[in-house]
């Protein structure tokens, strides 16, 4: 069997170095075509009419005026009379028309009568949720009552983070065309190999009936796996139009209202400890909502999983609001916030540096050595010991600085993935996978692995992804892509190289075991003088192209990939105590990624994760109106996201020490986005001397906390 394992750490030419993404120029110049940029000849546009009510029965739907409008080609009612609507924004009808403007005007011309019903759209106050809150039942470990009695110090507090949306820059949607017995689909998806099957199932067609194409996707964050109602109805409208392509893309307001949310999390948390900072007891009473289905169950206590005595209660609140979808590291940001803020408060009560408290309690985490190392590395990069002051001891001026930290974990094992590597007699190399590049650099990573394996420069390898005619590869969720595609690409390429060596060995008069591919040549191991150029070697194939497959079987990773990482993130903020405005000064992220494939895009992932942390900590929240039941900030104006000037300095360290490197490739998109939110909020508490219970740390919340402190 060929040898698949990664080249030794010191012997890698490309892997782990800093390589710019292959499609960077295309994207930065605007040449890259996202699906929402696609306009096909003869294409129709579809718009969706949504419910203005959060909870209502549809009484009647009258499409006659809309149908009569010039340019309207089809209307499909999806929530007809009798339907009970459970959130504002629920799709009522899809209209297809010759232009987007006509489609939108026509959607508004549909007359719908509703019978409004009572709704609940806010969950911050658990008592107000009444029967809409469902308790999961108490979970007890050890003897929490006794442990709290015995504790030297007990710290108790309230914490909360609101519902966020994914706010993908490219909204959800697709172009689809019903062409005879086949559907051509150009979705904006995280799931090139899987979305076709989802669509065909909904349309009761054979799974092979949908051909999916996608070059670039403008963000998904966990919300773009399925064909969705707009995919299904857009395709049906195409069929009804006699097979014209139909484009449906949600407008910004609909995108933020129904295309997925990250559940909230609120709770009262009590932590007991010995005088030296050893945590002995945990109690949490938490609740969360991700929409009508309830949802959101943060794993508590986060990372510090084996605190010996625990009592936990959690309720899921059902709201009349758009539903949850996976959101970069589902449940982890919430759990990290609830846990690490509670521990920071404990440290403040003990008058201890939280860095020491985290160090001390590393033993109740699943990877004590990793966290201790990362805490130390992050502290060095932050200059923590020099800058840290006890909570609130931040000088006399109105501007206060503070430090905060958090630690996190994620799985990140690679998904099932199949790849084909082709080596042609002219020396060209192609890799095919039914994968997708979410902007994470997947294309580039595949090219790196293949080029590394063949001893070729990066540009000698052509990567073909974004088509479900290629070998199936998993959806990009849960940081599973890099592990999946690296391993399948490695195996396919090693297999292909093996076949090439079979072909050239006789003419070089050497057994193939003595040959290797380096520096654009096939040469004798230990005797570089005896070689064939890559081109000359491939010419030996005659008329035959090598085409070899490689498979990543998640159950049998063969040492090439694994799962389970730790990470530590720290924040330094400055707070204007007269205005309550928090500014980022610096963030530090130390992350375990196993074997590093591309330093540059790995760092980019961590920058992006940190930026999402800044947004969540300081400004981002969905704001619901209990009167109208509607999202008030379904736009990019009051749904606030950070810009360049709001982010501060971000310092990233990726763990490449041998103990990390030897584990194989592990995904990092999710963990990168977990800890900083809590770290920033902890830094605010450290700066101003009081906990601001609920994120985001907006001026009104910070000022209210300061007022409580001063009272």
């Amino acid at each position, binding site marked *: 069997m060929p040898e698949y394992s990664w080249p030794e750490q010191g012997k890698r030419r490309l892997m782990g170095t800093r390589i710019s993404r292959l499609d960077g120029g295309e994207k930065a110049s605007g040449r890259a075509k996202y699906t929402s940029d696609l306009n096909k000849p003869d294409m129709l546009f579809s718009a969706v009419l949504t419910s203005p009510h959060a909870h209502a029965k549809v009484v009647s739907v009258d499409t006659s005026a809309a149908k009569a409008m010039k340019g309207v080609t089809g209307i499909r009612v999806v929530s007809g009379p009798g339907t009970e609507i459970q959130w504002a924004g629920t799709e009522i009808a899809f209209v297809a028309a010759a232009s987007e*403007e006509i489609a939108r005007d026509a959607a508004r011309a549909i007359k719908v009568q509703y019978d409004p019903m009572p709704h609940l759209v806010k969950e911050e106050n658990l008592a107000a949720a009444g029967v809409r809150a469902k308790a999961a039942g108490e979970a007890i470990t050890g003897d929490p009552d006794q442990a709290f009695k015995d504790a030297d110090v007990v710290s108790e507090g309230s914490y909360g983070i609101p519902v966020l949306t994914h706010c993908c820059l490219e909204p959800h949607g697709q172009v689809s065309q019903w062409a005879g017995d086949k559907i051509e689909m150009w979705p904006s998806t995280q799931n090139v190999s899987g979305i076709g099957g989802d669509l065909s199932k909904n349309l009761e067609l054979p799974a092979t009936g949908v051909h999916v194409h996608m070059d670039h996707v403008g963000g998904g964050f966990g919300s773009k796996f399925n064909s969705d109602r707009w995919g299904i109805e857009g395709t049906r409208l195409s069929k009804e139009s006699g097979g014209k392509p139909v484009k449906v893309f949600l407008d910004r307001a609909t995108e933020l209202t129904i295309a997925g949310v990250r559940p909230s999390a609120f709770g009262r948390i009590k932590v007991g400890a010995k005088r030296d900072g050893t945590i002995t007891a945990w109690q949490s009473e938490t609740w969360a909502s991700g929409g009508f289905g309830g949802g959101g169950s943060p794993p508590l206590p986060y990372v510090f999983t084996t605190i010996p005595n625990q009592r936990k209660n959690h309720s899921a609140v059902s709201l009349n609001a758009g539903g949850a979808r996976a959101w970069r590291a589902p449940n982890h940001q919430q759990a990290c916030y609830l846990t690490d803020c509670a521990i920071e408060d404990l440290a403040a009560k003990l008058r201890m540096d939280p860095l020491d408290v985290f160090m001390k309690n590393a033993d109740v985490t699943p990877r004590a050595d990793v966290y201790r190392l990362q805490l130390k590395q992050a502290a060095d990069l932050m200059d923590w010991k020099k800058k840290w002051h006890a909570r609130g001891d931040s000088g006399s001026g109105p501007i206060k600085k503070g430090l905060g930290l958090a630690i996190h974990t994620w799985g990140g094992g690679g998904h099932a993935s199949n790849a084909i590597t082709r080596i042609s007699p002219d020396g060209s190399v192609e890799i095919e996978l039914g994968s997708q590049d979410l902007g994470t650099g997947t294309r580039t990573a595949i090219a790196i692995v293949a080029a590394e394996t063949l001893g070729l420069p990066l540009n000698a390898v052509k990567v073909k992804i974004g088509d479900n005619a290629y070998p199936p590869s998993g959806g990009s969720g849960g940081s599973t892509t890099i592990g999946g595609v690296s391993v399948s690409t490695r195996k396919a390429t090693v297999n292909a190289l093996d076949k090439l060596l079979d072909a050239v060995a006789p003419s070089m008069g050497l057994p193939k075991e003595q040959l290797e591919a380096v520096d654009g040549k096939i040469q004798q191991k230990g005797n570089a003088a005896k070689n064939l150029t890559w081109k000359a070697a491939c010419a030996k194939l005659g008329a035959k192209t090598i085409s070899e497959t490689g498979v990543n079987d998640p159950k049998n990773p063969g040492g090439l990939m694994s799962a389970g990482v730790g990470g530590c993130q720290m924040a330094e903020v400055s707070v204007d105590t007269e205005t309550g405005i928090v500014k980022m000064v610096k963030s530090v992220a130390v992350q375990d990624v196993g074997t590093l494939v591309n330093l540059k895009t790995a760092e980019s992932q961590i920058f992006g994760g940190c930026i999402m942390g800044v947004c969540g900590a300081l400004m981002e929240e969905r704001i619901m*109106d209990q009167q*109208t039941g509607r999202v*008030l900030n379904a736009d990019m*104006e009051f749904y606030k996201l950070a810009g360049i000037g709001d982010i501060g300095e971000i310092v990233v360290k990726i763990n490449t020490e041998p103990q990390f490197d030897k584990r194989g490739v592990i995904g990092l998109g999710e963990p990168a986005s977990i800890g900083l939110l809590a770290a920033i909020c902890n830094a605010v508490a450290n700066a101003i001397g009081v906990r601001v219970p609920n994120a985001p740390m907006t*001026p*009104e919340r910070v000022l209210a906390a300061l007022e409580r402190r001063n009272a």
Partner: protein
Amino acid sequence: MQPFEYANPTTVKEAVGLLGNKWDEAAVLAGGTDLISLMKDYVYSPKRLVNIKNIKELGGIRADKAGLRIGAAATIDELAESPLVAKNFPSLAQAARGVTSPQIRNMGTVGGDLCQRPRCWYYRDGQGLLASPGGRSLVTNGENKYHAILGNGGPAKFVSASSLGPALIALGATLTLQSSSGSRKVAADKFFVTPSAEGSREIALLPNELLTEILVPMGGTKNATYEVRQKEALDWPLATASVALKMSGSTVSSARVVLGHVAPMPWAATQADQFLAGKSLTEAVAEDAAKAALSNATPLSQNAYKVQLARVAVKRALMAAAGARG
């Protein structure tokens, strides 16, 4: 977006001839950064758009004996970058620079900034300018953290969105409004009004009028604007203060303090003006002036924090003006 007619005049005369007597007949299209989004959201659907970007006489910024003349179609970026403005009216330059995102400064015009509609989220969601369907205020009973803390006793609870308005009022600017039957001049502090009925506007401009020019007298004031903003990027101030001080020696002989984003119109804080007259400006005086400026504040259920922010804006604007060259 409802279908509309598009007119592209090249002279003011032609343009005003294309305007109507009701707001839904015609709308002036300048940079379109506000108007187009209202149309796309079906909040406002005028039957005709009159593009003014091709009218040369509406552009440019220049100075003459009367003062600084700003064409209504001059962009916010031109205002922010103008050395004339920076030298004489730092307050105006600061307000212009504050308007977030280079794209909006490049497209948005000074006239458009003054005539833009409120950003109240109920209004933008189609619940009406006063957000009182069925006579019950959604603002009072709902989410009002960005709403008015002053001048909110009537049905209007939104805040005036213009950042340039407060600076121009403090500097004593005059606006020229032109219709097909002639032109009139309106002092900047009379241009903004608080509407009391659905369907009326927040400015004294009539549907058949075009704002053509803004004249800022060379007043020899020390002036400054301070904005309290949560974000650097693509965001609105939570409160602003523009101040203009006439000094005699180190004493304030007269002051104009105007708050932005705290009331349905730019808010002339006359209590602060009175308090400051005759005082020499210290931090303590600035703080007391700030308190005076907000003494009539009537915050809603969620926006008491804006009282504090507005105070800080006044104090910091005054201190900045004191440090600025007159």
